[in-house]
């Protein structure tokens, strides 16, 4: 990147800078006339000096009034012209500033993508992010006026000075007399401010680094009770920033003070020395006044210049400091990174490693003189203790690290010279802590197939125009013009033709890594849009019927209580029973059903209001009795209580006020508080109150009223349960169940899910359901998945792209031992005729490999087959013995 901000500006925005400067100077012309116009209006238009009426203008005879009106109209016109100039200059400045800012940020981000891996050990995201986002922000504004302002203000200054010289050269020299002093002292003071500015930028960066670290390590903070120390450290850092800033503005204002003082010292000299000369009649008074005026006239642009100078210094520091961070040694070659070869051949031949060396930042050898040669399609195990260099070797082979010396060649090609398009597609790597992006499982699974936009998205009409405008603008800032909305998926690479085929392949890969069951479960808990997938909805309705048939068997008949419009469901909440449907949107969320006026109206109509109040009272009384003795932070509150610990005293007090018989007299808010409690009750689960037949019949009655009286504006807020219809808001599982798993039956949930599994398999739906599960969102850094699930997904992501060489580094370590073995075997089987390099923690596993490389302290100490190495005196035997 350009080392100085001016090189950057000239390289990318010279044209804009010239146009802006020209525009600025052009705006002088109307400005000049705008300034002289009032004088003309007063002297000629109003006072009629130096002019006779009727006045002849271009053959037209004008009276004084007409002439005056014409002059004022011209004045107004000049105002408009001048403002138009200002407007277009500002807009154009804005555009070029924003473009440059966009370009700068893009460049910086592109640099981050090219950083060598070790850089991230020193440079945290907490430092990088503010550099790209916040610190560059102010640069845009400065860049826009970097040339026009100094030229324009400098011009003004020179014009004033020239004018003064023409008037009286002696006075001009006098006016200039103080400037050398100013020009000497101010940059000197500014330099100190600049240093402090650098300090401030660094301190702010450290601060955001600190915040980022606290967020990432928040578990440790709680686990070790270190919040207080963190707060203290944070306070100290804030203090550093405070003191730096305090010193900066002190000095800045001191510069201003000095500058203003020197500016005012001019008139002082003129009045005192000039006055003295005038008294002695060596100078006339008019000249003094003119000199003072001219000096003042020169002051304004000079002040602007000084401001600009300070801004420039600020911008220069920021730019240089940011750039310095973004140019670490060993950056990836941008040509290799983005090059797109015409044809990418599969890798084949020998994997040849010769004299490989790698050192860390301090120069300690991590890998020393490693050489070996194997056919690419063989399976190679790398074993060794921690610090033996086996992880680094894997990273080198995957070209995630670049060797210091030596070469890795595949089929005779040095992989360091291959474009990323080859290494990133034909080689796959998965380590012990792979990253899962905050997107769906599907996006993560097919992540390795999305290298370039293959199928452009078709735009039409307005959309097309907008798209083209956006493309032009991106190009103007040197940004990428690839369309993220295009189809980037390389189906051919996965050996399929379309998305449907790819999903099949994806599910297959998930099966290899033993993740398909989990994804199937996600699918059961997922929803589908029956309009978009009518066949699946249909099939699930069939599954619902088949499931009902299964429940006919006596041993499982009690496991599920199905929905029946005419019967109360004892395993569902009162709210669910009343609504007999799923809420759509948030008008009728179950938690706040008791507050909804329509629901209250329904209860009133069937005469349940008093009953609900009494129920509420009963629930409240029992809850208070049960929980009153417990400390407020007791876990039981969260797990079991209907009333939060904060609300408990309030409820206690309410119960003291309200006797059971006179609940009707309570205030509206107290009533609402009691009314809300029964809605959460599940009769068979919470044994707080007795649910008799009569009460349940009444609630079923309320259910009918709720449905029949439903006003127009709530029609779309609820999807009623219907035996014959697929519910888009309910999960697939709930759609199949069409009821509730009963409480209190041992292993009911397991048995029900087993039955659902049977039904799904009978109908051949397992893969379809798993495909719904592909839409499951993984959360930030895959946080909604377990560590084992993340690991499996990362391995599947590599399998889907069908690499010629698969490099794994402790990749199955986080898996439980049962699935670890299965996944291990399945991967070896899947890659039977393709290359694998597997860095293993357990040497025992190496028995399944063609070739074993034994690493020790960065050196390759032994290599060969398992039987060859498993003999007395080998390091390999030692490693085996350690297990």
């Amino acid at each position, binding site marked *: 990147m350009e080392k100085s901000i001016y090189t950057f500006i000239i390289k990318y925005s010279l044209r804009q800078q010239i146009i802006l400067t020209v525009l600025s100077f052009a705006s002088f012309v109307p400005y000049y006339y705008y300034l002289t116009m009032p004088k003309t209006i007063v002297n000629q238009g109003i006072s009629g000096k130096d002019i006779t009426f009727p006045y002849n203008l271009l053959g037209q005879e004008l009276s004084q009034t007409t002439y005056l009106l014409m002059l004022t109209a011209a004045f107004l016109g000049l105002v408009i012209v001048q403002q138009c100039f200002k407007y277009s200059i500002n807009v154009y400045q804005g555009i070029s500033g924003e473009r440059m800012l966009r370009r700068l940020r893009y460049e910086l981000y592109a640099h981050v993508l090219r950083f060598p891996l070790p850089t991230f050990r020193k440079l945290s995201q907490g430092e990088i992010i503010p550099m790209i986002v916040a610190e560059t922000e102010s640069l845009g504004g400065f860049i826009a006026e970097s040339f026009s302002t100094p030229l324009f203000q400098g011009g003004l200054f020179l014009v004033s000075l020239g004018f003064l010289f023409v008037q009286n050269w002696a006075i001009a020299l006098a006016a200039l007399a103080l400037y050398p002093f100013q020009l000497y002292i101010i940059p000197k003071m500014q330099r100190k401010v600049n240093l402090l500015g650098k300090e401030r930028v660094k301190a702010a960066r450290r601060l955001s680094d600190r915040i980022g670290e606290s967020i990432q390590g928040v578990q440790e903070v709680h686990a070790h009770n270190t919040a207080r120390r963190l707060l203290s450290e944070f306070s100290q850092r804030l203090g550093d920033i405070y003191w730096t800033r305090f010193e900066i503005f002190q000095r800045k204002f001191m510069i201003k003070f000095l500058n203003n003082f020197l500016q005012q010292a001019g008139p002082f000299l003129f009045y005192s020395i000039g006055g003295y000369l005038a008294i002695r009649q060596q100078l006339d008074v008019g000249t003094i006044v003119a000199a003072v005026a001219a000096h003042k006239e020169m002051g304004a642009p000079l002040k602007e210049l000084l401001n600009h100078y300070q801004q420039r210094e600020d911008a220069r520091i920021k730019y240089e400091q940011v750039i310095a961070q973004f140019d670490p040694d060993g950056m990836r070659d941008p040509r290799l990174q983005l090059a797109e070869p015409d044809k990418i051949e599969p890798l084949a031949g020998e994997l040849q490693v010769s004299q490989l060396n790698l050192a860390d930042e301090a120069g300690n050898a991590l890998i020393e003189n490693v050489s070996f040669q194997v056919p690419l399609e063989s399976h190679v195990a790398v074993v060794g203790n921690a610090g033996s260099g086996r992880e680094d070797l894997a990273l080198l082979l995957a070209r995630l690290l670049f060797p210091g010396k030596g070469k890795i060649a595949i089929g005779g090609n040095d992989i360091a010279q291959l474009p990323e398009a080859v290494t990133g597609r034909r080689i796959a790597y998965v380590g012990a802590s792979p990253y899962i992006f905050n997107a769906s499982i599907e996006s993560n699974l097919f992540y390795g197939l999305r290298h370039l936009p293959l199928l452009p998205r078709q735009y039409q009409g307005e959309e097309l125009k907008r798209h083209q405008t956006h493309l032009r603008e991106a190009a103007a800032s040197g940004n990428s013009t690839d369309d993220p909305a295009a189809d980037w998926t390389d189906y051919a690479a996965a050996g399929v033709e379309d998305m449907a085929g790819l999903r099949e392949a994806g599910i297959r890969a998930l099966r290899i890594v033993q993740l398909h069951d989990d994804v199937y479960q996600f699918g059961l808990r997922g929803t589908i849009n029956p309009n978009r997938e009518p066949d699946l909805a249909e099939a699930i309705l069939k599954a619902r019927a088949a499931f009902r048939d299964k429940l006919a068997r006596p*041993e499982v008949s009690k496991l599920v209580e199905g929905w029946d419009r005419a019967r109360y469901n004892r395993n569902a909440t009162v709210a669910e029973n009343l609504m007999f449907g799923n809420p759509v949107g948030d008008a009728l969320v179950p938690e706040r059903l008791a507050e909804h006026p329509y629901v209250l109206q329904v209860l009133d109509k069937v005469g349940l209001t008093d009953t609900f109040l009494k129920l509420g009272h009963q629930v409240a009384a*029992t809850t208070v*009795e*049960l*929980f009153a*003795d417990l400390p407020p932070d007791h*876990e*039981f509150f969260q*797990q*079991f209580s209907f009333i939060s610990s904060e609300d408990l005293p309030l409820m206690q007090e309410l119960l003291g006020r309200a006797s059971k018989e006179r609940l009707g007299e309570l205030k509206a808010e107290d009533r609402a508080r009691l009314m809300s409690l029964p809605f959460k009750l599940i009769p068979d689960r919470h*044994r*707080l*109150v*007795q649910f008799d037949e009569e009460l349940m019949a009444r609630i079923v009655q309320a259910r009918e009223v709720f449905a029949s009286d439903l006003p127009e504006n709530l029609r779309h807020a609820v999807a009623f349960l219907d035996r014959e219809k697929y519910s888009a808001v309910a999960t697939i599982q709930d759609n199949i169940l069409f009821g509730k798993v009963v*409480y*209190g*039956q*041992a*292993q009911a949930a397991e048995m029900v899910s087993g039955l659902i599994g049977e039904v799904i398999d009978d109908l051949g739906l397992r893969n379809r359901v798993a495909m719904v599960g592909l839409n499951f969102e993984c959360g930030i850094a895959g946080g909604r998945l377990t560590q084992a699930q993340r690991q499996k997904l990362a391995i599947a992501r590599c399998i889907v792209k069908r690499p010629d060489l698969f490099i794994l580094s402790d990749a199955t370590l986080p898996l439980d031992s049962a699935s670890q073995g299965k996944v291990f075997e399945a991967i070896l089987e899947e890659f039977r005729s393709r290359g694998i390099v597997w860095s293993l923690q357990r040497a025992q596993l190496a028995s399944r490999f063609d070739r074993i490389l034994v690493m020790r302290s960065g050196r390759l100490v032994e290599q060969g087959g398992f039987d060859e190495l498993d003999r007395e005196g080998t390091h390999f035997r030692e490693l085996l013995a350690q297990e």
Partner: protein
Amino acid sequence: MSLNEEVELLRNIPLFAKLEASKLKLLAFTSERLTFQPGQSLFRQGDMGDAAYIIVSGEADVIVDTPKGPLKVAGVKKNDFVGEIAILCDVPRTATITAQSELTTLRISKDLFFRLISEFPQMAVEIMRVLAQRLEKTTSDLRDTNARLRQLQGG
């Protein structure tokens, strides 16, 4: 069954007999009522213990795996408290318990059990008493058995 009935039921179990009514109510409320069909197991020998059970109604067999196959060593019935050893000492289940008839239980999870013990010392004392009684019974049984064995060997 309502909460009050469950409290009555808990009161009949020696372990809980001396607890205050309000504590019993909390125990009843926070424990899970679980029904097992004949043939279903509460837990199996060798599993790690995660809960203890109070038999509310029905009967179950206590079965121990032996080299010769499963052997029924005892039966449990209403008001019995089973499965507490495994959660107290963190040892695997020492036997399998299989429902013989439809079996209703109150399941007290390990967490809940320890919480109750640590918060209500009366209960801990009660449990100690019951376990001590059991130990005393086992010891006297052992004494009897030893005596019989010696008699047999001597005779």
